[in-house]
């Protein structure tokens, strides 16, 4: 199969949907001429024109809310927010308007709105450009949360978002944009929400890796393999809905589990997974539900400090090993 990058996979999903459905359009800061600050929409202005690749003022609340209004009128907007850190400029629109519109209207409002946004630390971008804000939106019902870790998932999950009828927060990890991988050319290639991906099978321990940390989990698994530890790596792919079944089955098999996520540890995305396991899979557990995550301090600018705060492959390896050598 041909290989394309994560970034190209996202562009391809958008472009394909835009070609076949005139209701789909892209709206955000610098998505046009600039091609998106991350280059994801590069070239799309040429193909689709200013009407459908809409540069906006720097007004996140208005952009998200405009997406909501257009969606309720039958369009299928893709809103791009440059950094996950900026989502809270539109916090009310996302949590009180977008997420609740359908329910409050008695199920009548239709909100086919996809919010594409970057997550994760790109390196020395400091406290307001490095966060992984997935968990800030997990508590409020009504919005689905997607976090692809591979080019194929990026494309397949985005297609599902764009063809669905619910609001979706789609988190693209900045450090994955350049990753290449096989991606089906089938224009109807979709990956269902709520189906975790078993990236690697193993018997001794389950590592659940979210977004970038799924990739690092595989690296950790490689390393641990050489030491004779067989790691099962699971990428939940969507945090809302969450594929509890696959996760619990894996833990039933391995009885040991590490949840790895790049957000801050306290109340981060993996906290819910850990809590879910504590409630629904405790009988399978032979040891703690370990969490590998960023420390509970804002992301620092200095590379030394930043590396210390962020979780990495080595942290996963250590967490896994601690099952056999508890400290």
């Amino acid at each position, binding site marked *: 199969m041909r290989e394309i990058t994560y970034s190209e996979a996202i562009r391809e999903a958008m472009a394909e949907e835009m070609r076949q459905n005139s209701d789909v*359009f892209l709206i955000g800061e610098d998505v046009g001429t600039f091609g998106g600050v991350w280059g994801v929409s590069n070239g799309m202005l040429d193909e689709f024109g200013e*009407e*459908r690749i809409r540069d*906006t*003022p720097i*007004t996140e*609340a*208005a*952009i*998200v*809310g*405009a*997406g*909501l*209004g*257009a*969606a*309720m*009128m*039958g*369009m299928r*907007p893709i809103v791009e927010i440059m950094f996950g850190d900026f989502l809270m400029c539109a916090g*009310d*629109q996302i949590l*009180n*308007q977008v997420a609740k*519109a*359908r*329910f*409050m*209207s*008695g*199920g*009548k*409002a*239709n909100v086919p709105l996809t919010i594409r946004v970057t997550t994760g630390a790109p390196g020395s971008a400091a406290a307001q450009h490095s966060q992984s804000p997935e968990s800030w939106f997990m508590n409020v*019902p*009504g919005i*689905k949360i997607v976090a692809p870790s591979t080019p194929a998932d990026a494309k397949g999950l985005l297609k599902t978002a764009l063809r*669905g*009828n*619910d609001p979706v927060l789609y988190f693209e990890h900045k450090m994955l944009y350049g990753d290449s991988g096989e991606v089906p050319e089938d224009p109807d290639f979709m990956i*269902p*929400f*709520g189906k975790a991906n078993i990236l690697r099978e193993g018997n001794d321990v389950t590592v659940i890796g979210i977004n970038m940390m799924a990739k690092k989990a595989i690296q950790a698994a490689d390393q641990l393999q050489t030491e004779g530890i067989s790691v099962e790596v699971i990428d939940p792919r969507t945090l*809302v*809905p*969450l*594929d509890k079944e696959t996760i619990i089955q894996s833990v039933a098999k391995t009885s040991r589990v590490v949840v790895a996520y790049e957000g801050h540890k306290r109340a981060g995305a993996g906290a819910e997974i850990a809590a879910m396991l504590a409630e629904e899979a405790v009988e399978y557990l032979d040891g703690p539900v370990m969490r590998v995550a960023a420390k509970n301090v804002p992301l620092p600018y200095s590379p030394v400090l930043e590396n210390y705060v962020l979780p990495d492959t080595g942290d996963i390896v250590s967490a896994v090993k601690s099952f056999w050598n508890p400290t």
Partner: protein
Amino acid sequence: MTQKDINEYSKNQLARFFRQMTLVREFELRAIEERRGGLIPGFIHSCVGQEATAVGAGEALSKDDVITSTHRGHGHLLGKGGDPKYMMAELAARSPGYCLGRGGSLHISDFDIGILGANGIVGGGFPAAVGAALAFQMRKEERVSLTFFGDGAINQGTFHESANLAGLWKLPVIFFCENNLYGEGTPQHKQAPIRDLAQRAEGYGFPGVIVDGNDVIAVYDATVVARERALSGEGPTLIEAKTYRHRGHYEGDPMIYRPDGELEEWQKRDPIPAFRKRLIESEIISEGELEELMGSVQEQLDEAVGFAANAPIPVAEEALQGVYADTHDGLVF
């Protein structure tokens, strides 16, 4: 704006203005009564005194046009054609209510007739109104969107961002401000350093007009003009309608914040008696005809209350429905 002669409006139209304003007034009074009586469980922010804005604006819109509304939305919804039956049923938290009892006063919507929703968040509805207008523009549909808001709401950041976007893209939006001199207990002059809020439109490159918000015809005319402007591609208008709410911010508000005599002054300018007087003086509609209209309103409301009171209440488990369009085999609910 120079006022047209009342004879330039059809009798039907004028009768409708009267009937709709009466409907709004009586709906509110009835809802308040039914809340006291226990039929309605939640809060009510009544718009008594502000009927001319709701009806004048609503009558100027077509069915295909859309509105976003506020916490004080009953008038807006009725003005846009909302059915008192389903509204009352919603207030009574019944299954056939507009939102199946899930939304209540703060969240009533009717997508079939362009009511995109009341809103519990002050300033929450601006961006969606702009987005709806964007959809109309992109699809080249002959529709406008009108967003109702208060003198308090105009200070919210979402107003600014939304007005900027609408002005920039010349979207078919009408920003309709009901300046009733208060946001909750805080007078308008303690919320913004300017009195004529219409002035702000300039900063977004579109016109702002001030109208007497207690004059249904003036409101109607201003909205018609704004709508035509919007449809012709010239972009938004900000209409500031000066008016007053006669009752508390919500039912139960002790209203300690009002200077003596202020309410009484405004009650003299009550939009409904004033309009009634005008109709009679201009001999367009007779007292008898007006009484008949009022009677028909009461009938309609009796029916609405009866409908609500006899409607089934939701079943607890229904709460889990309608959060998502697609639940992925029940994984999200």
